[in-house]
């Protein structure tokens, strides 16, 4: 103790330590930052440049500057607008279903019962699986002749049964069935995520709110609308935003299950981007421009997401 309180010595030591702290700090954060810049930021600038050119990765010709031509082409392309619309439908449908289902599940699980921990963990398993694995085994489940979905729904004759991923029912085309099938899988996989977030929100509601409500003889209906829902709302919002970001990015599941088909019924924008960039003519410039448009949409949603996350962190 005496050493520390002795002024000259402590001062000198503190200074030296301060210096080495600074050095250590730089040593600790710069490798991370450099890697992120090299592998994430630099490529983004590179593709920004490419988006103003007509470059093709397989043509062997240097990029030619064509200014905003890619962007105006994309924005005037009716088909791409349709893919954006499909992505929007997909995101809206799957995120709203996940929110409703996840919320209801959380309300069900809220009260503990014997073995509820085990059951809750089991419900969470789909979320941790690889989208490829999930896509593949749902493809098997959806098969019109030997899949379990039709079997469990009681369709015994394959020719009268829905052909989920083929968007047909008893041979008749049903537009939207394939997209719905993919939505179902996404909901199956990610409702537990919403549930987990809501559950943590529910557990954080202080008991005295309910006690006060009980003293005031508020019905459980009123308690739900006035206490439970407003208290969980921020977490529900976060879950929704996160899922929206993921839905706009959605690639793996669709790629494995339908590859965008039948026709282009499940052609989500990310899948189309992959096709433009890495298949056929490798339209690298145009794909980069499209990537930037998607990026702007995602950044807008991400900003909201991170803002709310920070708010919650601030409280907690």
């Amino acid at each position: 103790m005496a050493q520390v309180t002795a002024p000259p010595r402590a001062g000198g030591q503190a200074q030296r330590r301060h210096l080495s702290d600074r050095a250590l700090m730089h040593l600790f954060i710069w490798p991370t930052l450099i890697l992120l810049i090299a592998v994430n930021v630099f490529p983004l600038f590179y593709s920004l440049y490419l988006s103003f050119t007509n470059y093709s990765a397989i043509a062997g010709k240097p990029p030619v500057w064509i200014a905003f031509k890619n962007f105006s082409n994309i924005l005037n392309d009716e088909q791409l607008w349709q893919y954006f619309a499909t992505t929007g439908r997909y995101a809206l449908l799957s995120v709203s279903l996940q929110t409703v289902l996840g919320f209801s599940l959380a309300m069900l699980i809220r009260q503990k019962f014997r073995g509820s921990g085990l059951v809750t963990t089991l419900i969470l398993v789909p979320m941790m699986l690889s989208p490829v694995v999930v896509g593949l085994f749902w493809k098997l489940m959806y098969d019109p002749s030997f899949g379990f979905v039709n079997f469990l729904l009681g369709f015994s004759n394959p020719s009268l049964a829905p052909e989920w991923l083929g968007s047909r029912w008893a041979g008749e085309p049903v537009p939207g069935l394939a997209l719905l099938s993919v939505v179902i899988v996404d909901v199956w996989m990610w409702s537990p995520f919403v549930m987990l977030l809501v559950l943590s929100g529910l557990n954080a509601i202080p008991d005295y709110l309910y006690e006060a409500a009980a003293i005031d003889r508020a019905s459980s209906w009123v308690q739900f609308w006035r206490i439970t829902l407003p208290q969980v709302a921020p977490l529900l919002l976060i879950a929704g935003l996160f899922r929206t970001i993921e839905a706009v990015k959605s690639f793996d599941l669709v790629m494995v299950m339908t590859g965008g088909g039948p026709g282009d019924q499940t052609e989500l924008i990310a899948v189309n981007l992959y096709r433009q960039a890495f298949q056929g003519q490798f339209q690298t410039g145009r794909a980069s421009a499209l990537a930037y448009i998607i990026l702007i949409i995602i950044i807008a949603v991400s900003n909201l997401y991170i803002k709310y996350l920070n708010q919650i962190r601030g409280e907690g």
Partner: protein
Amino acid sequence: MAAFEEIGPRVPVVESTRVDKVNPRARLFGAIRATLVVIVAIVALIPVLVMGITAFKIRADVVASPPKILFDPTLEGFVYLLTERALASQARLQELQQQAQTGEVGLFERIALQSGQEITGPSDYVFRLRNSLIIAGLSTIASVVLGLFSAYAFSRFNIAGKNDLLFFILSTRMLPAVVVTIPLFLMYRQLGLHDTHFGMILLYTVFNLSFSVWLLKGFIDEIPREYEEAALVDGYTRWQAFYKIVLPQAVTGIAATTVFCLIFAWNEYAFALMLTSEEARTAPPSIATMLGRGGIEWSAIAAGTLGFLIPVVIITFALRRYLLRGITFGAIRR
């Protein structure tokens, strides 16, 4: 089980919970609720179970309509997945059958023999799995080590623009894989990193880095600074304090982060599909392309996915306490 009971502050036993336990109506509701939850869990797990049993079916049973629930289990799917086979000639077949009777051949050979085939070597998939192991393993180590250093720095030092930097780090994670891949593909081609192990390790390291920084920072924030300060007063250098005081206390956090990173890298599909073709291709894109080749070997695919499923299920159980933290980048802790 304990994990979910420990969520949130322990509540004192108030009047209402007592009433819940005694009141028959409340008990009935409780029972209905529990039954519903169990039913939901069972429905949710049906696809997983289907995949599990498909892995042990022979080809004819897989495509039987209506699907068979009872069947003779076999390891055929695993044999198809892991080996290359060729039709054996009559003479060779007899020779092999004799060997099988005397018990000189292994289990896989005997199964292949049942359909008149001879194993000629390991399949492509074995190499893909090895790639997956190498790439996921090394990238996880790299991102956890780098993440740990930065997380410590962000947690303990005054860094100019700290929040902006953290925001920047997190935002890199939000980028869609397809968007980053186009320029990366060109860069990698230029640098000769396309389809190399090093290229993929580098990519996955960075991909997981933002996550590991955020998650680990949350864990390190919870370790009281007083321990280190005491150590510094006692003459430890900053590095020693980090190494000897903080590290041992952050072990749980490090373990959880490691496992999360491992799962992400192990499951990753989009980058691997676009940036590898042969040499460094990992298992997920190659399972998916098995569908394309001739007759669909569902049992082999099921066997392959089972290999992905089992570790993940085990890990989910082991990590259930940290799942919430993991999926929200450490922002929500309870």
